[in-house]
């Protein structure tokens, strides 16, 4: 039975061997040494302007959080939508309560100004 997995095993072995080969090859062939120029960030051949570790505005984070909430909402709504009929009105009411609670959160965020980019 396990034999049917043999191709997968061979595939795995080849890819691992290939990966190791590539890494070894590049370390052997490449001219060594880390110079200051080499480790500088690449900006189309220009001298880099400012640091590369730039701070992101916290706004991106707010948007990500908002996204997570409604993303996870879908996880619950999708199974409910698929079995809408067998679940009946009780299921419908539960889902509406769920959405209502999320809406309260949305109203809060809106009023708090978390949805405005500027």
């Amino acid at each position, binding site marked *: *039975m*396990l034999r*049917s997995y043999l191709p997968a095993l061979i595939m795995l072995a080849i890819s691992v061997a290939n990966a190791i080969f590539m890494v070894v090859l590049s370390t052997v062939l490449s001219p060594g040494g880390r110079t200051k120029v080499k480790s500088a960030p690449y900006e189309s051949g220009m001298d880099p302007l400012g640091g590369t570790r730039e701070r992101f505005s916290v706004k991106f*984070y707010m948007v990500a959080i908002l996204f*997570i909430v409604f*993303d*996870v909402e879908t996880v*619950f709504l999708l199974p409910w939508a698929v079995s809408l009929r067998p679940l009946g009105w009780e299921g419908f009411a539960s889902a509406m309560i769920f959405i209502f609670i999320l809406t309260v959160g949305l109203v809060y965020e809106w009023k708090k100004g978390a949805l405005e980019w500027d």
Partner: protein
Amino acid sequence: MIAQTLPANAGLYLSAILFAIGVAGVMIRRNAIILFMCIELMLNAANLAFVWFSPFAGVQGQVFVFFVIAVAAAEAAVGLAIILAVFRHKETVNINEFSLLRF
């Protein structure tokens, strides 16, 4: 067919290994974000166990996974905000640097 070719408890072993990796990561690593990722790994190991058990133990196991995902998302939102707040004070997320609260 797969169930016959795999060892009987393969999923359980895999989830136990994932869980152990998560626990070991929390013990060893010092970066708060990586610690948090290891905790997520623990939760997902539990998810895998739930799904693996559900054919024998009941289909509700798969439903629990949804709840755990939702809980993990809430935890991530709050946890990352906390890490952000700490980073503003300390400019680091290395937990060895946090020593204000010692006696």
